[in-house]
């Protein structure tokens, strides 16, 4: 059965927008129920302290307060915050929902209260008296692994949570044969995701029906339901999780948080609806952070620039406790460390290090931005040392298109790619040779322009269940109503990606109906069959593939119904314009609605066919997908102030086949700008006592509209062979590909000062200091 693509591949406007642009959408904080109570969380002001006592007596009698819970009240009643990742030999750095005995980071919840009004709840929070015995803190992972470091857990002999090692190829031989070994210590700093909507939870309990409903701003409604049921010790069927509109997440809501269980518990205990909305300050302190790795990197190279081997020793700062996927994230860095280059031998050692900070976990890219940054930065260091053009070094080490599927020494199989093509395209679009001439001319005038390149590959469409902590498949159900309207139920849980539109495009094309006839439903565990959620650039490649399979089942059934009526082979039928017809004989045709009606009226069905039109598919991907691309950035650095100005930006991305180019471009725009944040502005800073110095938007700079040049976008298309639509995923490409391009541009601008590497973020003051040192040396 062929499919006409009237909507797939088209820049269709989004179906979700009308409600969002008119203020008619509902985020968690927009929900209002009669008798609703408001929760406030009492958090540790210390990075590391023993709790001597918690006295809530004053708060309990404060105006409007209904209940206060301390650790004693929930001990044994609410389970630990779950961690789904397992690494052999890892220590159990698990966290209770309220701190027991010790607090280990600033912002750790110690108590929670509810009041009749959100202002009164906050007033009362100040009345909970906690007596702390402060302990020495450690925030620097390089210090935390020293013998003299304070220990986070008395029962562990050191602060190393786990060790993960991987070796492929003959590393010793590679380094022996090298003409040169290039070494660089590199820091990929801690970032704070800062979704514009902070987290929020509303819970309501109906004691008669024994039904708990939890509305949460999450990426994973079904997994959250399973975990809340487990933490509270209630049957899973007693819990319904609804994901209302989610105001951005970027991985930070791919988690199970203490507040979700606490608010649900309070609703059950009080038989009242309870709402908790995270303040921005809480969001900085106690929603997961990302990145935070130090890599001691070594590359064995030949004089001609070919790569022989790689050694990476990575300190991954995981914070004080695991969240859902914490230990797993740095391993993604290890697996992707070779980037898009043929490196025959690798040796990787990752130490997960405990510090008195919030947990790191999946922040947009989740381990791959770090990998790409390390290898792409290292490629430029190699180019500088060998006095070669960064383009040449990259070109020399690409696997060729005919070598795909290509297996890396880290054991991954890259599905399909043409790295040369994306590089050539970005060089052409940016007029690279002209840029180099311009740069040379400006340098003579004392102006410092820099050109930075990044050729990246990422791992997406997560993923085969064998390689995922808790299932990597996705579900989709398609239900066609007797009227011919199509319901698409997806286990994906979009939060800005626009799957209501892209999934509608897929369904409309496969069934030959209008987008207006399709409704995409997600994020309600009582309606949608069990699903995994939206993260790891997986929604279209895995969730979309499940939808494709479910649609195929219904097409087959409808074709059998129509074929039976028309007396033709169902295999010859096509679906278009609300008709099911034979392409070569269009007069042999049945209206789509008529075939649907036949399935429900059930009088003229082929013998033995079940009535109804409802199909579910669970798609299990056979491999990850590996999108790739080439980004080029042009900057100018003011040598007097250290100010970096982004002048031009060129992106070439390849995410395979595309359902909606408008949305793909939007994803990359956003990702690139988050990379601008990582490269130039953002950094979660804890002081030596473990205070989060960048605890508000005042101190943590996000990119603003005025910080950016127009982004010049292009795509190449290399379909993936691992799913039916040949799509790869694009949600994280921008944060993976762009940071190194920007950094390489700044370092390139500073090359005349003898600069070879600058650590992230490249703030004005850091560059100014480097330039001052360099001038003094002269």
């Amino acid at each position, binding site marked *: 059965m062929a499919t006409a693509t009237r909507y797939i591949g088209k820049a269709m*406007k989004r179906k979700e927008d009308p409600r969002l642009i008119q*203020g008619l959408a509902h985020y968690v*904080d927009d929900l209002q129920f009669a008798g609703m109570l408001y929760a406030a969380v009492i958090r540790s002001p210390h990075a590391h302290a023993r709790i001597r006592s918690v006295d809530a007596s004053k708060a309990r009698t404060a105006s409007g307060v209904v209940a206060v819970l301390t650790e004693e009240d929930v001990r044994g009643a609410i389970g630990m915050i779950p961690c789904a990742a397992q690494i052999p030999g890892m220590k159990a750095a698990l966290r209770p929902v309220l701190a027991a005995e010790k607090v280990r980071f600033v912002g750790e919840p110690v108590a929670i209260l509810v009041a009749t009004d959100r202002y009164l709840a906050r007033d009362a929070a100040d009345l909970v008296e906690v007596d702390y015995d402060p302990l020495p803190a450690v925030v620097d992972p390089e210090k935390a692994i020293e013998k003299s470091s304070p220990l986070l857990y008395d029962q562990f002999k050191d602060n190393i949570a786990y060790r993960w090692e991987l070796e492929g190829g003959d590393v010793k031989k590679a380094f022996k044969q090298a003409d040169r070994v290039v070494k660089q210590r590199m820091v990929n700093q801690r970032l704070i995701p800062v979704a*514009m909507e902070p987290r929020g939870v509303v819970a309501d309990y109906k004691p008669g029906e024994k039904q708990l409903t939890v509305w949460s701003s999450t990426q994973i409604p079904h997994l959250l339901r399973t975990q809340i049921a487990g933490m509270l010790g209630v049957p899973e069927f007693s819990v319904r999780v609804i994901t209302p509109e989610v105001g951005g997440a970027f991985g930070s809501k791919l988690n199970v948080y203490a507040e979700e269980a606490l608010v649900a518990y309070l609703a059950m205990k009080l038989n009242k609806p309870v709402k908790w909305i995270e303040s921005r300050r809480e969001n900085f302190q106690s929603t997961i952070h990302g990145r935070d790795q130090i890599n001691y990197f070594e590359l064995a190279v030949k004089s001609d620039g070919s790569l022989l081997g790689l050694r990476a020793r990575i300190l991954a700062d995981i914070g004080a406790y695991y969240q859902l996927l914490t230990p797993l994230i740095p391993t993604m860095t290890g697996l992707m460390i070779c980037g898009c280059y043929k490196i025959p031998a690798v040796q990787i050692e990752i130490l997960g290090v405990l510090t008195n900070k919030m947990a790191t976990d999946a922040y947009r890219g989740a381990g791959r931005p770090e990998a790409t940054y390390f290898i792409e930065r290292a490629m430029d260091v190699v180019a500088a040392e060998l006095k070669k053009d960064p383009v040449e070094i990259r070109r020399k080490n690409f696997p060729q298109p005919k070598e795909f599927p290509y297996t890396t020494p880290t054991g991954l199989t890259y599905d399909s790619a043409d790295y040369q093509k994306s590089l050539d395209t970005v060089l052409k679009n940016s007029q690279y040779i002209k840029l180099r001439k311009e740069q040379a001319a400006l340098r003579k005038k004392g102006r410092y322009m820099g050109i930075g390149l990044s050729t990246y590959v990422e791992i997406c469409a997560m993923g085969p269940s064998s390689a995922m902590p808790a299932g990597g498949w996705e579900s989709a159900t398609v239900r066609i109503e007797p009227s011919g309207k199509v319901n698409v139920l997806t286990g994906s849980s979009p939060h800005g990606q626009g799957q209501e539109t892209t999934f509608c495009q897929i369904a409309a094309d496969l069934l030959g109906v209008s987008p207006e006839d399709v409704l995409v439903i997600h994020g309600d565990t009582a309606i949608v069959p069990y699903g995994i959620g939206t993260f790891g650039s997986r929604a279209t490649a895995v969730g979309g593939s499940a939808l494709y399979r479910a649609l195929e089942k219904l097409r087959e059934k409808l074709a059998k119904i129509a074929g039976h009526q028309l007396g033709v082979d169902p295999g010859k039928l096509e679906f278009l314009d609300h008709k099911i017809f034979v392409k070569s004989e269009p007069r042999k045709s049945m209206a789509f609605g008529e075939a649907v009606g036949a399935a429900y009226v059930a009088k003229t069905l082929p013998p033995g066919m079940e009535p109804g039109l409802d199909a579910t598919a669970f798609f299990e991907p056979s491999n990850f997908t590996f999108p790739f691309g080439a980004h080029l950035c042009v900057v100018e650095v003011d040598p007097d102030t250290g100010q970096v100005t982004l002048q031009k930006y060129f992106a070439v991305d390849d995410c395979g086949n595309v359902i909606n180019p408008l949305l793909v471009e939007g994803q990359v725009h*956003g990702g690139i700008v988050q990379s601008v944040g990582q490269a130039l502005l953002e950094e979660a800073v804890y002081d030596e006592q473990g205070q989060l110095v960048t605890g508000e938007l005042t101190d943590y700079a996000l990119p603003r509209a005025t910080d950016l040049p127009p982004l010049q976008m292009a795509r190449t298309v290399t379909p993936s062979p691992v799913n039916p639509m040949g799509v790869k995923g694009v949600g994280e490409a921008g944060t993976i590909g762009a940071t190194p391009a920007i950094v390489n541009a700044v370092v390139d601008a500073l090359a005349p000062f003898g600069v070879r590497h600058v650590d992230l973020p490249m703030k004005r003051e850091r560059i100014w200091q480097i330039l001052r040192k360099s001038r003094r040396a002269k």
Partner: protein
Amino acid sequence: MDIQLRVNGKEYQSRIEPRLLLVHYLRDVLGLTGTHVGCETTLCGACTVLLDGKAVKSCTVLAVQADGAEITTIEGMAGLPVANGGLHPVQEGFWEKHGLQCGYCTPGMIIAGAALLEKNPAPSEAEIRHAIAGNLCRCTGYQNIVAAIDYAAKKMKKRKR
């Protein structure tokens, strides 16, 4: 305290606590939840509304300060004369140009864009970027927001002719 104000063309009289923020008054008292809270410190702009025609961040305005004022929130944009009974041109621009993803910053962005076009009907790209520099978006990278406001400016100019 008693306040009296017009919101989206409707008169309201309320008895409120002096410390109540305007954004909470709009959301919790009037039920106009299209205006969002992103930071409570004037830094993100998600709560931007028009107060007597000026874009203000309603998380750092007390409701009592709005006594006697005329307020337009995102829910009232389509009711403005410039919308001609349909969407406001800036709203339309956001839809046409994919100027939003998660939608959380969008109401504030639309208000900031509309306020700019009131003062400057033909802004340059740099002027648009400057006008929304007080509004944070974490999803779009701003490029399509700039395009959306530019679309609206051109559309409004065409209508005037």
